[in-house]
């Protein structure tokens, strides 16, 4: 009898509280979205399963002695996992379109307004009772507007680890929702004529330019904004491995083995931050609302800057490509392409949108550096 009681007490069902049940449902929901709706499955499947595993009562898999808890300590608290992912992103990204037309960097800059506007939004939420975001929290939430997963995780793990789960989930979810969020804004802010603009072909880019590019970006970052150096540094390192042409083995390792292994571990580790305490709170609702806001504002500002460039160049720039400035590579560029094709079936904007798209990656890493430098402890 005593033994049976002990057995019962060791069961999950006797120890499960409502929060854990709800968080396991959240985990299942994320996996459902990933599989059925193809929402960033590479991250959301491991995150969702990490949430499932970490909310199993008694087992403590996400705790300090559990496997996922240890992975979190080693890989996320140190910042190493998001940086390795950024190295892989660099090794996978072709910056050619940006090198051919550097002015698209301005589109990437404008779209970061979403980040800083969200920062104000998060601080404004504090006027509603129940919200108590610090400036660090607000900064970490704001970076969702950067539409860049590893950057958001890196910053959140530094400024607001408690919010990491919600921020990562919001960032990846909205990145997956880009094809739904962006088109109405893009259509509302542009005229039919603007959307029909056919852009000039991009000039070819030499290998030397491709090799020099990472150094130029890193140098500027080192001189002006060293707090962004880990992110920009690993991004440019990965890109140099890709472009230098003499370390094919290492480039493949960064693009495949490392990024795949780290993605699994990172996803599980983030999932362990989806605990009821942290996630089932009013804050999460705020984060989700602010995240959507951030994407909308970022898209709008990108498109508006596109209109400015349209005027300034005498109509050579199609303002739609400004929407790609939020990053969310390569989803946002594809959305631009699709909206462009709606107006003119022969107007392929994909390559033209890749410039602002990858500029958005650099832009949000710079914004993350600014937030780290000015609000980090």
């Amino acid at each position, binding site marked *: 009898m005593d033994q049976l009681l002990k057995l019962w007490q060791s069961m999950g069902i006797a120890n499960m509280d409502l929060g854990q049940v709800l968080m396991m449902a959240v985990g299942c929901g994320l996996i459902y979205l990933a599989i059925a709706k193809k929402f960033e499955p590479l991250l959301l499947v491991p995150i969702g399963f990490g949430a499932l595993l970490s909310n199993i009562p008694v087992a403590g898999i996400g705790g300090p002695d559990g496997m996922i808890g240890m992975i979190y300590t080693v890989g996320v608290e140190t910042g190493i996992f998001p940086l390795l992912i950024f190295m892989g992103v660099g090794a996978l990204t072709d910056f050619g379109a*940006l090198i051919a037309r550097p002015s698209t960097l301005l589109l990437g800059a404008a779209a970061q307004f979403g980040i800083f506007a969200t920062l104000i939004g998060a601080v404004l939420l504090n006027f509603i009772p129940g919200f108590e975001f610090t400036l660090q929290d607000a900064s970490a939430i704001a970076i969702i507007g950067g539409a860049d997963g590893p950057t958001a995780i890196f910053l959140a793990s530094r400024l607001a680890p408690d919010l990491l789960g919600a921020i990562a989930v919001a960032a990846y979810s909205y990145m997956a929702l880009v094809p739904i969020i962006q088109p109405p804004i893009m259509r509302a802010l542009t005229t039919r004529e603007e959307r029909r603009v056919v852009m000039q072909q991009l000039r070819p880019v*030499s290998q030397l330019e491709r090799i020099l590019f990472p150094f130029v970006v890193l140098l*500027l970052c080192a001189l002006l904004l060293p707090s962004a150096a880990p992110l920009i540094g690993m991004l440019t390192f990965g890109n140099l491995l890709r472009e230098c042409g003499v370390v094919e083995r290492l480039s493949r390792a960064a693009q495949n083995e490392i990024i795949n292994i780290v993605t699994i571990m990172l996803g599980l580790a983030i999932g362990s931050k989806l605990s009821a305490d942290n996630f089932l709170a009013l804050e999460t609702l705020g984060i989700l609302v602010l995240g959507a806001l951030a994407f909308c504002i970022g898209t709008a500002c990108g498109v508006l800057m596109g209109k400015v460039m349209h005027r300034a160049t005498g109509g050579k720039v199609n303002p739609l490509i400004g929407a790609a400035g939020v990053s969310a590579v390569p989803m946002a560029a594809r959305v631009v392409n699709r909206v462009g094709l709606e107006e003119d079936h022969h107007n392929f904007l994909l*390559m033209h949108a890749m410039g602002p798209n990858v500029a958005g990656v650099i832009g949000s890493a710079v914004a993350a550096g600014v937030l780290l430098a000015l609000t980090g402890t």
Partner: protein
Amino acid sequence: MSEMTLLTESLRLLLIGMGIVFSFLLLLVGILRLMSWLALRLAPVPQTGPLSPPAADPDGPPIAAIAAAIARYRAGRRR
């Protein structure tokens, strides 16, 4: 910090932040142009035609995609 201080602080962050982001990327525009100018001096591009947008479905011309995929697949088997 009170809500108001926080708000002022965040407004300042907005100004400084967007200022830095824009200055940084504007500077980068200039330096990249300089870099390209220099690079094309040092090593003129062999004329291979302009980098053109893909002519069809952005997911790729099937023949090229398959060839690349097979190469990748073969490479993958050797590991």
